[in-house]
């Protein structure tokens, strides 16, 4: 049964988490089990990706309950892409964590929570049932709460309280929207709702519900007025956790947004204008937020906000080419953002600081690592052959053909600010002379054992190769995104796949 395969990566992470429970205090055993679990899950993610591409859409009706009644799991091209990205990033961050995190955090059940978080993400990407999506969201946020708050320093508390409050609020709004949607359509299956919602006469109520979904997912994906929790909480966590948060957690909100607004609700004029305005403001405020910051992690947090704007802009344009552009951008962004946070972690190991004014002359001491970092930095900006360039140019082209010049200007402005900030970061961290004399005690990286260094650097190299592949093999990724965009634009494919496989 190929369709049962959809659940395989989820179950592997779940079983790994359970096995880890038996080794609660044994740090080394936890590390080994986690790496093995991540590797198996990665292989299964690749397999699922391949199966989905050959079969177009995989559908699993759990317990053989026919479509509108049971819980559906579905893997179409977009889901498969997200699963693949989760597999890559979780493998990289899993290996990185074995060396980057200190023992006390691992004793507090870091790996256990980490695997549950990844399980939740995979579930959210694969489910075809709106209430099930809510449950997976909760699995993810309760795990992220734990990862964020373990440690209990004062700085963490401030970020964590904002994060927890905003996420509980977002869940409540999301649940409210599900309740109303169930009230007007009488169904929870996404494909079934999509059919039934067309017959609803009260169009105003449908629009209101869609905006409730927009606000709920908007808080999670950090769009313009709702993003303030992100810069105040993401920089307090260790880099490994920030990598998984920055890379995947906000993208889960975007994924849900794309899913809901392409299949259930078809945006009208008002909604698309709202999307575009929000996207412009998100890019603008995110870009401005980076300018006066000295803390690298905080700059990266604002860059996440800024780049979420690109994705929302693509949803707002609502054409097939725009969808292609944002799916391409999503692929690029998940890989590169996780990598950036991991690089920050290595910088902290080397210099004990994330403050740009206190860093410097890394290029002299660590030339190879600096070159690697430069490649990643430039990928994020999108210097032509590297990965960020192609989706940006697509998005620019599409906003030009749509005649949306304000959006075009903001996209260019946001790109320039990103370029400026990244170049400044590069100069401050790697190039300039270190402001104070360097002592041996500051460097925690050199005294590390070889295996520890390998576990830190290998994931960064791996993700850099992936982003190089995205840049140089842009044609393949473009075709893939085009296929996903085609499926999003023609929602009959999704609906038929769910409703007709009643075997």
């Amino acid at each position, binding site marked *: 049964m190929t369709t049962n395969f959809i659940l395989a990566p989820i179950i592997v992470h779940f079983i790994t988490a359970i096995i880890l429970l038996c080794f609660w205090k044994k740090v080394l055993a936890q590390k080994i089990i986690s790496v093995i679990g991540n590797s198996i899950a990665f292989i299964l993610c690749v397999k699922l990706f391949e199966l989905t591409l050959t079969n177009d859409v995989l559908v699993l009706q759990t317990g053989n309950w026919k479509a509108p009644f049971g819980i559906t799991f579905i893997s179409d091209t977009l889901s498969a892409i997200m699963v693949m990205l989760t597999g890559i990033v979780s493998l990289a961050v899993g290996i990185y964590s074995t060396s980057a995190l200190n023992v006390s955090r691992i004793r507090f059940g870091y790996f256990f929570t980490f695997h549950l978080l990844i399980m939740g993400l995979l579930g959210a990407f694969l489910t075809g049932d709106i209430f099930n999506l809510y449950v997976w969201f909760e699995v993810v946020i309760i795990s992220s709460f734990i990862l964020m708050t373990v440690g209990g320093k004062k700085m963490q*508390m401030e970020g964590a309280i904002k994060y927890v409050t905003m996420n509980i609020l977002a869940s409540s709004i999301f649940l409210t929207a599900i309740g109303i949607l*169930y*009230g007007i359509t009488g169904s929870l299956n996404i494909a079934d709702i999509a059919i039934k919602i067309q017959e609803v006469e009260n169009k105003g109520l449908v629009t209101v519900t869609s905006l409730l979904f927009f606000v709920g997912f908007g808080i999670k994906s950090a769009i313009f007025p709702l993003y303030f929790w992100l810069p105040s909480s993401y920089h307090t966590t260790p880099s490994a956790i920030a990598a998984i948060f920055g890379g995947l957690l906000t993208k889960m909100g975007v994924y849900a947004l794309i899913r809901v607004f392409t299949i259930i609700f078809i945006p009208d004029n008002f909604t698309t204008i709202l999307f575009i305005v929000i996207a412009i403001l998100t890019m603008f405020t995110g870009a401005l937020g980076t300018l006066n910051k000295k803390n690298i992690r905080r700059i990266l947090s604002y860059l996440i906000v800024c780049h979420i704007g690109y994705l929302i802009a693509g949803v707002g344009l609502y054409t097939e080419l725009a969808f292609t552009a944002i799916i391409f951008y999503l692929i690029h962004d998940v890989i590169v953002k996780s990598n950036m946070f991991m690089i920050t972690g290595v910088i902290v190991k080397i210099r004990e600081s994330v403050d740009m004014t206190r860093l410097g002359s890394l290029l002299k001491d660590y030339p190879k690592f600096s070159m690697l970092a430069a490649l990643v930095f430039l990928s994020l900006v999108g210097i032509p052959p590297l990965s960020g360039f192609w989706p940006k140019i697509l998005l620019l082209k599409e906003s030009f053909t749509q005649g949306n010049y304000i959006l075009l200007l903001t996209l260019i402005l946001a790109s320039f600010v990103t370029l400026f900030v990244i170049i400044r970061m590069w100069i401050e961290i790697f190039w300039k002379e270190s402001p104070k004399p360097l002592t041996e005690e500051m460097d925690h990286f050199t005294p590390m054992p070889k295996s520890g260094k390998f576990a830190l650097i290998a994931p960064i190299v791996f993700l850099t190769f992936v982003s190089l592949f995205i840049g140089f093999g842009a044609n393949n990724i473009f075709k893939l995104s085009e296929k996903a965009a085609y499926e999003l634009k023609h929602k009959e494919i999704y609906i038929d796949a769910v409703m007709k496989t009643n075997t």
Partner: protein
Amino acid sequence: MELLLVILVGVLYSAGIYMMLRRSMVKLLIGIILLGNGVNILIFLMSGITKGKAPIIPEDQIGFLEAYADPIPQALILTAIVISFALTAFALVLLKKAYTLTGTDDLDSLNIQDLDI
């Protein structure tokens, strides 16, 4: 009955949001609880209230001869209650920890953002 519940949901939502906007940690927690309960009652209300009917079809009956209570919202609330219970418990522990760190009930005392410019 439905009208009463609708008003109750409105009151719970507005009171919850109002309490969440306070500076006090305890009031924030009360806000979270009120909002969670408001959401649960809203889901319960969504399929309409049927008085005196069990959410199952009796054995000797074929098809939906008369209206029966919709079982799905009840199943949904069961899940939602468990989840909101867990989240509230977590928020309670977190706020307790924040209280022991700062020694006050005031959320503003946690603000250290201004230092970083």
